[in-house]
């Protein structure tokens, strides 16, 4: 079955898929101003990378890639918890999730 996958779906396809998803995520971050959606696009980018890692791990027969995916998931979960808490605080103060509001962090 594994040989099937390799025969049927070349690694390049996964690379392309990941690249497309990643690029869409980047576009989303640039395109939107809603901080939450931007956050979601970041998650999308992380997932694109995850997919690529799993694909490489499978094709290179190396479990390291899948372990990395674990760590990325852990980091993403922690990041979401803290990030959403920060967004909630920002929303409480500004009543908005527009990142244009956040340029006050500059010097």
């Amino acid at each position, binding site marked *: 079955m*594994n*040989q099937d*996958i*390799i025969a*049927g*779906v070349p*690694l*390049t*396809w*996964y*690379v392309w*898929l990941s*690249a*497309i*998803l*990643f*690029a*869409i995520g*980047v*576009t989303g971050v*640039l*395109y*939107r*101003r*809603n901080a939450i*959606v931007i956050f*979601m*696009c970041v*998650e*999308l980018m992380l*997932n694109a990378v995850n997919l690529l890692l*799993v694909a490489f791990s*499978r094709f*290179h*027969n190396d*479990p*390291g890639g*899948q*372990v990395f*995916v*674990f*760590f990325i*998931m*852990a*980091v*993403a*979960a922690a*990041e*979401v*918890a*803290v990030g*959403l*808490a*920060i*967004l*909630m*605080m920002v*929303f409480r103060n500004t009543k*908005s*999730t527009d990142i244009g509001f956040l340029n006050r962090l500059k010097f």
Partner: protein
Amino acid sequence: MITQYLFYFLSALAITGAIFVVFTRNPVYSALALIVTFFSIAGHYFLLNSTFLAAVHIIVYSGAIMVLFLYVIMMMNLNLDEEPVKTNFAKFGAVISGCLLMLVLIVALRDAEKMSIQNNISEGLGTVNYLGQVLYKNYLLPFEVSAILFLSGMVGAVLLGKREIQ
């Protein structure tokens, strides 16, 4: 060849979902589209025979992270009227640069196929046993460090979310 068709289907679903995430104006729709994308990525994991990872992916991303997102969006009760919109120029730039990045990425990674590919794929690569062995033997320290990361993330989230006592 069924795997190929599955791959096409899941990829189409993932890309459509991702595009919806970016271009729908309602954040709730964005979140729902992202969930669809995540599910199709989980499907890809299944295709790649990483069932354990697929299950964890669903539990973590769909079960926890996206629920949190939806929860926050619903709690903020964001309306379409308040949805901030960029200028057309900025949007155009964003799309262009996104496409450029995609092209460049594909070009940069065009040699991926040629990288050393093992022919003898071990069956148990994606199983819990195998991953557990690797995770707890070779990556024990990062594992513990990520535990600390979680703890600090939890503390941080609780502290941030707490209303200041007046």
